[in-house]
């Protein structure tokens, strides 16, 4: 019986260590990441940054600063920004951090000061936004966050006209929590929400009907993907069978010396 308890304990311990360690969400830049000192001024010209890469840029109040980053399924992003400005402004100002997905759809923040207002005497303002966890698949009609490009826009939405154009200093950091990982969702987005930024062409005629593409079935189509429910459940079945044999063996009478 002692062996039984020991093996159960070992099994539980193994399960615990294998469980993915929760990543800390402390907003610190990744070590070795180079600082970005640029910002775009529109969706098309947004400066691409990576999670953990600090951004520091000089700008004028009234500028609309754009950055973009890539998100994968299962990740939760937190954006922290600080805008500091010289003293001597004439009134209250309201700042905002807006996040859009690859289709320029507004994304909700689940936490963080998204549109703080500061008094004339303040010399800096801190903004924050925690996004929803990115889902691997969602119905086309839904607005759920999906893998692909995300845009961040930092701007001032309300301020006295007198204060427009004054120098500001913007710091921004996108941090990511949960690298991929299995989620409760099934399905997969065939193409991530990465916008097509090439100049378009206006068609002169409707495209001709094209023959039905024959579905190619190869062996690889039949194999389940790594991390799919098929693989997990099969592994569980194998483990259960092994554990059954072990359990059976434990009840065997020891041979007396």
């Amino acid at each position: 019986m002692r062996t039984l308890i020991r093996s159960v304990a070992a099994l539980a311990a193994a399960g615990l260590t294998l469980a993915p360690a929760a990543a800390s969400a402390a907003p610190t830049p990744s070590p070795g990441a180079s600082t970005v000192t640029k910002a775009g001024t529109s969706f098309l010209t947004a400066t691409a940054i990576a999670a953990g890469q600090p951004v520091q840029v000089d700008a004028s109040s009234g500028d609309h600063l754009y950055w973009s980053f890539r998100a994968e399924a299962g990740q939760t992003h937190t954006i922290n920004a600080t805008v500091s400005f010289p003293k001597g402004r004439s009134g209250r100002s309201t700042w905002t951090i807006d996040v859009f997905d690859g289709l320029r759809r507004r994304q909700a923040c689940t936490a963080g000061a998204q549109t703080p207002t500061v008094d004339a005497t303040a010399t800096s303002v801190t903004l924050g936004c925690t996004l929803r966890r990115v889902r691997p698949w969602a119905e086309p009609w839904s607005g759920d966050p999906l893998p692909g490009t995300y845009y961040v826009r930092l701007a001032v939405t309300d301020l006295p006209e007198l204060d427009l154009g004054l120098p500001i200093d913007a710091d921004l950091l996108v941090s990511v929590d949960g690298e991929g990982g299995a989620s409760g969702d099934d399905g997969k987005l065939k193409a991530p929400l990465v916008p097509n930024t090439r100049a378009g062409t206006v068609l002169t005629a409707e495209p001709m009907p094209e023959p039905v593409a024959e579905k190619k079935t190869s062996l690889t189509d039949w194999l389940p993907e790594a991390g799919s429910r098929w693989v997990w459940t099969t592994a569980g079945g194998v483990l259960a069978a092994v554990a059954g044999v072990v359990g059976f063996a434990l009840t065997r009478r020891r041979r007396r010396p």
Partner: protein
Amino acid sequence: MINKRRSLAALLGLLTTTALIGPAPAKADSEGEPTAEPPKVELVLDVSGSMRARDIDGRSRISVAQQAFNEVVDALPDETQLGIRVLGATYPGDDKKQGCRDTQQIVPVGPVDRTQAKAAVASLRPTGWTPIGLALRSAAQDLGTGSTARRIVLITDGEDTCAPPDPCEVARELAAQGTKLVVDTLGLVSDEKVRRQLLCIATATGGTYTAVQSGDQLTSRVKQLVDRARDTYTAAPTVVGGSTECDNAPLLAPGVYTDREAFSEHRWYRVPVRPGQELRASVSVALDRPVNPDYGVLLRATARDGRELVRGVDADSGRIDVISAGLRWSAAEEESPTPSPTDTVTAETVCLVVSNSLAPRPGTEATPGMPLELTVDVVAASPAPDGPDLGRGWALLLLLTLAGLITGLVTGLLTRWWVATWREN
């Protein structure tokens, strides 16, 4: 134990195989095709009489601007083509007609000869009038037309003294022409009229306005704007004219388009989508003029018969550059009998309509319409997953293992009891 190890090894092997021959990597970030055209930017400097005033760090405005230009020319990236145009540099007289034609290009747009450019800037003396409108129009001509965005950096200390043409109207007119042109403005004085005018020019073209407080700030800002011309110049979107109804609307292939939309106007476009494909569209309407503080944009996809398929909508309030919305749509999967190879699939035409709920402030110009940016993409549809009745996760593995272990134990104990009973009988 050997058994367990072996099965684990088999499992690992299976995992590696599937990882290696997994699905093809998704489409990489499309960063826009590299264009052969170099980034082009022109600095437009006001050299009117008022530039003599000594009010920036105790130095005259012109000397601060000259120093900034020198540093910018020194730090200029090799591939950037820079031109310099001045206004009010030569005619000191009182004749308005002549004074308002006073604008020259002192460095032509092209690869920069640093020594020559610096010499040209050093020789400037504050002299005449301030024909900003004319200078902007000429600068746009200097930059020429092409497939990429161009930038004008306007540095001035006074309002236009030569209207008409009103510089803001000139800016709006230049922005409405085919070439994508951005005007960034820098004001050397904090005068209300100057600020209004420069803000109007910047907003009308999607540029920025900066109130210069010090020489260092001027230098770093101009450097930043010149760098931005290099970093962010992209292939300009294709100009398209949406129509008032779906039937004769332009047919769009995937890509980025630009158009103009007036207040309360509807613009229609068509996109062919084949079965098994997903339509993705997004739209941004730029608020390039003063509008009432609450506004919205609506992008709808409809079928040919007017039936709405899906809509994207967004509303906001306050000071903002663009308001955007987007949508995804794919045809519902049909349970059709297996098609024979001779069958053909026809593309369904989906109509896209863009409308806005922007309202002009009194005195706001209604024409030309506001810039509208439309992106269209057609990709493979992502069908709804058919969830198998299976599980996933470490808790499941633990549960199954425990269940197996308990079953094994119970079976073992039962067997022992049964064997013992059977022996006794």
